[in-house]
């Protein structure tokens, strides 16, 4: 069962057991609502702001610990936890949506573990950047699925052992199922050119990341000097061909990441930035975790027909089993964006008509989302009839293309 936990800010609150913030306002508190299967909305409650803030403080100093999971689970409002318990008759998918780094950056995967122990049922956690309209249907990818691994190692940053990083990842990828290309020392331009020519289905980044003013950056190479060039989500998104439906952002393990939180901030970029669904690292991990998780993840992505949520769970379980005394498994996190949990449909064949319908459905969907955003910006009025009509036409096109895809697949 899919349960969406939606956080929104509720104002600043005084927390007596915490040092007074310099703003003298107290920590920001959040209202949490629960949505079941994207339809029923349960009443809101207020998350405990002191606990959220103290977990956030602790994570500045250290990697997450399992107690952080129970702290996060219990900071949820009691009525929300009770509503979740009521639905604990099978596996639960908790999807966290907030749009705020102070919530998104917390290790909610561990909260899922704590909840699972309390409920006696598996509770999976993923993140969710809501798009305004339902996304277009999955793109069909035929085997071999194409992966572009982008590795960076700028000379003014802590230097990685690039070969070891790539080997740990690539050794587990089945070459019968995947066609892999590796781009070393990538610049923004070389990565864009490679994506245009190779048209990968998966873009897998390995390297440092950075964070600035709440936005995340990948650390690529300056084309002239080979030094660091931070590239933001907006710029990467503009260079992505429509074939890229999954983004994987791996932190480096042969060196300490410059700022690993940059990966999460990148993946949580606002919905208007056209990034695909992403699998990321939220904190540092070791080589064994890299080898185990990605081997199983890529294996299961084929088995599950392109469902990355299923692949994520399999990868997390395998990592936990391989390193039972470690929380490395919880570093791997799914941020569902455009494409949701199933951004790819991995099939045996695809005809030209189906391909045309699929890519047109993708772009019709993007147009509809942009028009919906614009309509939201202008308050509805008699003047917005034309915009409403355009939106309706764009949505109709998405439906038509989707219908054509179904017909094509059936035939």
């Amino acid at each position, binding site marked *: 069962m899919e349960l969406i936990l939606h956080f929104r800010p509720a104002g600043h609150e005084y927390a007596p057991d915490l040092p007074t913030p310099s703003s003298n306002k107290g920590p920001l508190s959040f209202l949490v609502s629960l949505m079941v299967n994207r339809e029923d909305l349960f009443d809101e409650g207020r998350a405990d702001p002191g606990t959220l803030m103290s977990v956030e403080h602790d994570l500045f100093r250290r990697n997450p610990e399992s107690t952080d999971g129970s702290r996060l689970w219990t900071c949820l409002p009691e009525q929300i936890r009770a509503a979740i318990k009521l639905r604990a008759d099978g596996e639960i998918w908790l999807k966290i949506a907030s749009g705020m780094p102070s919530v998104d950056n917390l290790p909610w995967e561990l909260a899922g573990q704590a909840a699972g122990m309390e409920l006696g049922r598996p509770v999976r956690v993923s993140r969710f950047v809501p798009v305004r309209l339902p996304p277009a249907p999955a793109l069909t990818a035929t085997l071999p699925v194409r992966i572009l691994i982008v590795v960076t190692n700028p000379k003014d940053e802590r230097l990685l052992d690039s070969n070891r990083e790539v080997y740990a990842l690539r050794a587990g990828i089945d070459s019968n199922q995947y066609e892999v290309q590796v781009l070393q020392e990538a610049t923004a331009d070389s990565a864009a050119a490679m994506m245009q020519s190779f*048209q990968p289905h998966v873009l897998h980044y390995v390297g440092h990341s950075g964070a600035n003013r709440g936005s995340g950056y990948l650390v690529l190479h300056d084309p002239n000097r080979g030094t660091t060039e931070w590239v933001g989500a907006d710029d990467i998104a503009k*260079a992505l*061909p429509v*074939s890229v439906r999954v983004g994987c952002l791996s932190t480096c393990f042969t060196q300490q990441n410059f700022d690993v939180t940059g990966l999460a901030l990148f993946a949580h970029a606002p919905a208007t930035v056209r990034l695909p669904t992403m699998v990321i690292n939220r904190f540092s991990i070791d080589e064994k975790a890299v080898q185990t998780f990605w081997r199983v993840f890529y294996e299961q992505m084929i088995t599950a027909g392109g469902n990355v949520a299923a692949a994520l769970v399999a990868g997390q379980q395998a990592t936990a089993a391989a390193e039972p005394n470690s929380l490395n498994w919880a570093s791997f996190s799914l941020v569902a964006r455009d494409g949701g949990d199933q951004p790819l449909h991995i099939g045996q064949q695809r005809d030209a008509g189906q391909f045309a319908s699929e890519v047109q459905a993708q772009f019709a969907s993007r147009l509809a989302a942009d*028009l919906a955003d*614009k309509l939201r910006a*202008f308050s509805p009025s008699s*003047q917005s009839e034309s915009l409403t009509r*355009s939106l309706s036409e764009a949505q109709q096109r998405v439906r038509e293309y989707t219908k054509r895809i179904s017909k094509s697949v059936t035939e």
Partner: protein
Amino acid sequence: MIYDEFRLQISPDLKQAGTWSLEILKCPIPQLSGPQGAPDAPFAATDLAILRNLDNFRGGNLLKLKAIGSAAFSAVTNNAVRAALQASIAHAAQQQHGLRIVFSLVPTEQEAGPVRLSEIPIEALYEPRSNFLAPQINTPVSRSLQAQPDRDALALTPPLRVLVIAASPTGLPPADIAQERAAITDALANLVANRIVELDFCDPPTRVELARRLTTKYHVVHFVGHGGVGRTGSDPSPRAFVFLQDANKKPDSLDGESLDLLLRNNPSVRLVVITGCSTARLPPAVEGVPFAATAYDGMAQRLLGAGNANVSAVVAMQFDLDASAASAFSKAFYSSLVTPGTTLDEAVTQARGAVMSALPVGDPAWVNPVLYWRCTDGKVFDVHPIVGAELSPDVEAQLALLNAQIDVYRKNLDQMAAQPPDIQAAMAGLRQQMQSDIENLVTQSGQLLGHAVRLWGGRARVGEILRCRLTIRLRAPAVLQSFRVHVVHEPEGFDWVAVGAGSNAAAAPLSGLAGNVLTVAIDDVSRGTRWAEQEYEIATIDYRVKSATPPTRTIKLRDLNVTTGDPTFFRALDAIAFMESAPQ
């Protein structure tokens, strides 16, 4: 508002070197005019330093600002001048007029006093009875480098064309370009929708692009970003400049003299606005030795100097400007500037008021904008209200929404064009639907506009001919006499090929190409007959497509002038052209 003028000249005292002499050149009470002796006291360099250090005014410091304003008043007036000024303010008020206060500055290389004349913050003038003068709408304060105004206002048929150059090169503190751009766009949204103003951004903000842009006719050039005073390149002479960007987004300083030369070749630019930092400051002393320069070397002063035949007014900043103050200024300034009947100093004063309201009491940001001008009748542009030009707020809102939709479609077409070729081929059907959608949206805009001239775009591949139809649509029967328009294309996208007769025209129009501006002229359009209410094709214009990147381009109509028997306003609708690559 109707203004009387109080014009005070400050010039070197020819009889006593190193001192200033005051003369009232113009006054609503004529008998008070004439030489008035020397100012009371020099302006202290320490006061200037205090004013220019924004840290002294965090959260506001009204007491300090009043003290500086009083000192500035003493530095540019004396008892006799102040008495004449008070009498003039009272006299103007009796007539229900405002009093325009203009300081006519005659600087020299060897200036008197510790602070250069043009560096005295005249805009801060304060005296207890009148309070601060410059932010009051009935006492606007401005500067001139001439004894008398000598430039007539440019009679303007809308749209007023504004070119914004917003640069934030790497390696300098990031300027809030996005906020400034958004503020200007927001301030002018309705005016743009109504075609009273046309707003373009110089992208990329490079010297090459600026020179190219200035080959088409703009009325206002607005710089946003960093400026300063210092050496540029290997030239040892310090001078005022604004920063553009080079091709690698690195700083490229454009000094006042270079900008002056660029603008001399582009006579339609009458107003320059510079909301950079320090852009009105003069060169500092170099290595302890005062730099021998006249006030003309300041960026603003340079553009209005002797020999410049075009620019009538410059609005620039005299010290560092906070980004939020710059935004508030731009928004209020342009809104006022295009209001018929509003004078230029009135527009600047409205903008001072907006800055004052946006910041704490006692913040000196409103002192910052300096208006140098030489315009007769207080106007740099004479924006005439035209019969039929007004649109209802409902129609304006609909137009804004249609434009917003067109932008969304174009952005998505751009994204589609960035896809690999096989994906683009697969999306041909959707792309054509979206192109038709854009054409329909433009048609809907046309239907809201009343009488309109439209250049219809179309679709063509690289190497093919794009035929644009020039039509005129009448909402009421009319006899069409003469027709003139400039058609501006982007030279990277098209080569002009030919102009032909439209299906409703007797012959091909007169035409001439200069650069990328095609002039189309037709006399006796309807050949003396009264044309009925419908759309008529009066010409065709052919272009050869050179590039499919970007996939959409606009071909603009400018300086539209249609004469009929009655005063009638025609709006212009630009063409949107859709380009595709040549088949492989």
